[in-house]
């Protein structure tokens, strides 16, 4: 009976974690380039009460035995890197990746982080930076007084200076991609870091070798679907409830057992 209590408790804990992840997905429904997460559950180990194949007579064996499972645990919280919706902003510094790839961002401690958020700004030196002021890598500097900025599909950034007719190239946005993007470490601020499980980044030009292409004046929304999250929330809540009923039932049975002796 004590087993049933702890087993159902693992179920309640798992559902709590499920709800934590759903809440974070919903909180980021309007975050540019946000990728939703999902909890993958696994069953825990089994306690063998009667071993399969135990002889019951010289010629017969127990055909299937008795195993009692000890509950559930979250196996992984996996990021889902499906494409979010793309919407137009008409801001020349908003760039979206259509397809596979991440922008490379230089963080203040010198490591390269990766992002799907292409809402760039300019800092005091004219560099293209994220909302937190972290510059793109390789850096792209827009000269002061430039009349227009153009980002081509292949990542080439050109500017037109006043009085000049020929546009002038100021840099190329390169993308990085990973064999296993789900293995990236999320560090907040729409940034990810490479890990042993994501593999080494492969750097390339947008539009070539399977990398996505860039589009200027658009942004990528999160890939969170509100209806889907609501349905998961309902199912998580009900699963939480039914696990608590399993605990109540076990508790009532123990109370009945306590009343065996008056």
């Amino acid at each position: 009976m004590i087993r049933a209590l702890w087993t159902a408790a693992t179920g309640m804990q798992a559902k709590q974690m499920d709800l934590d992840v759903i809440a974070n997905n919903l909180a980021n429904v309007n975050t540019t380039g946000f990728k939703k997460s999902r909890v993958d559950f696994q069953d825990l180990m089994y306690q063998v009460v009667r071993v399969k194949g135990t002889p019951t007579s010289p010629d017969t064996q127990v055909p299937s035995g008795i195993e009692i499972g000890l509950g559930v645990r979250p196996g992984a919280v996996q990021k889902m890197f499906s494409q979010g919706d793309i919407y137009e902003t008409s801001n020349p510094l908003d760039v979206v990746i259509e397809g596979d790839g991440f922008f490379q961002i230089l963080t203040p401690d010198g490591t390269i982080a990766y992002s799907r958020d292409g809402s760039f700004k300019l800092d005091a030196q004219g560099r293209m930076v994220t909302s937190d002021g972290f510059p793109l890598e390789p850096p792209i500097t827009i000269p002061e007084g430039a009349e227009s900025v153009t980002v081509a599909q292949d990542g080439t950034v050109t500017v037109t200076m006043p009085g000049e007719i020929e546009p002038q190239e100021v840099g190329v946005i390169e993308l990085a991609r990973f064999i296993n993007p789900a293995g990236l470490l999320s560090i907040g601020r729409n940034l990810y870091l490479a890990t042993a499980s994501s593999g080494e980044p492969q750097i390339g030009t947008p539009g070539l070798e399977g990398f996505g292409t860039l589009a200027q004046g658009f942004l990528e929304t999160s890939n969170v679907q509100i209806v889907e999250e609501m349905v998961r929330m309902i199912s998580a809540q009900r699963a939480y409830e039914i696990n608590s009923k399993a605990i109540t039932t076990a508790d009532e049975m123990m109370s009945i057992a306590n009343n065996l002796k008056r």
Partner: protein
Amino acid sequence: MVSYEGYPILEFLFKKESIWQINLSRDGSRKTQRGGDRELIRGIYTATSALNLQELKQEVWANNIANLDTPGFKKELTWAEAAREANLFRFLGSQNPYSLGRMTAGVQPGTEKLTDFSPGRLEETGNYLDLAIEGEGFFVVSTPSGEAYTRAGNFQLDEEGRLVTVSGYPVVGEGGEIILPAGGSVSVDEEGNISVDGEEVDRLRIVDFLNRAVLRKSGENLFVAEGVIPQETTNFELRQGFLEKSNLDPVEAMVTMMEALREYEIAQRILVSQDEALQKAVNSIAQL
């Protein structure tokens, strides 16, 4: 000497040595044994066996419920089976023994197949590495302790591009571990052929067992079959972007728990009445 003819409880108390039981074994042999000390409290043991069974049932269903959202989880069932029957005989002095009839020692967990392999509900996830088997069969997974089998198709890639389970065990195809080249778009057809950008990479091994009762759950959504070699099957359709969830029906789970609780309560009442009757026998009648 007090006559206790007609008082069955007193007969149990004072003449227990005259009751013998013959156990009928499954193989047909007979074992004769004296009723012995358990005579007096036989009913208590019978009720206890029912309490134990309902407790086991509640434990098994608590685990089923905890795994309500576990992909590929197959629920466990409990079966009740009457415990071995015994023939009771009474020996009175020089008379021929006469039969008191048959009596069982209560109930015990059944020895039949316990895992219900019926299909779980399919849920669309849209994730290209989520695979569901519609029909018969299991995915083959290579673990450090040998091959294991699973119905949970929530796969991922590791840093080398291998298709792995959530625990990192490689999924096995016809050419061994399945390694997907980076970048391309992965598609899996209904027969399990994996292709990247239209180019075939490997085919998933889907196997089945003649007798699935040999499968033992080892946690991490895996089944192991000690020493039994499965055969390849084609009796399935693979669905990419879908996951098979557990085959547990929450309504059934609630009803089973209520049933277990009430049956437990009934067995407890029986035990308490036995106790009350014995209390009368020991304290009240003996005062005569």
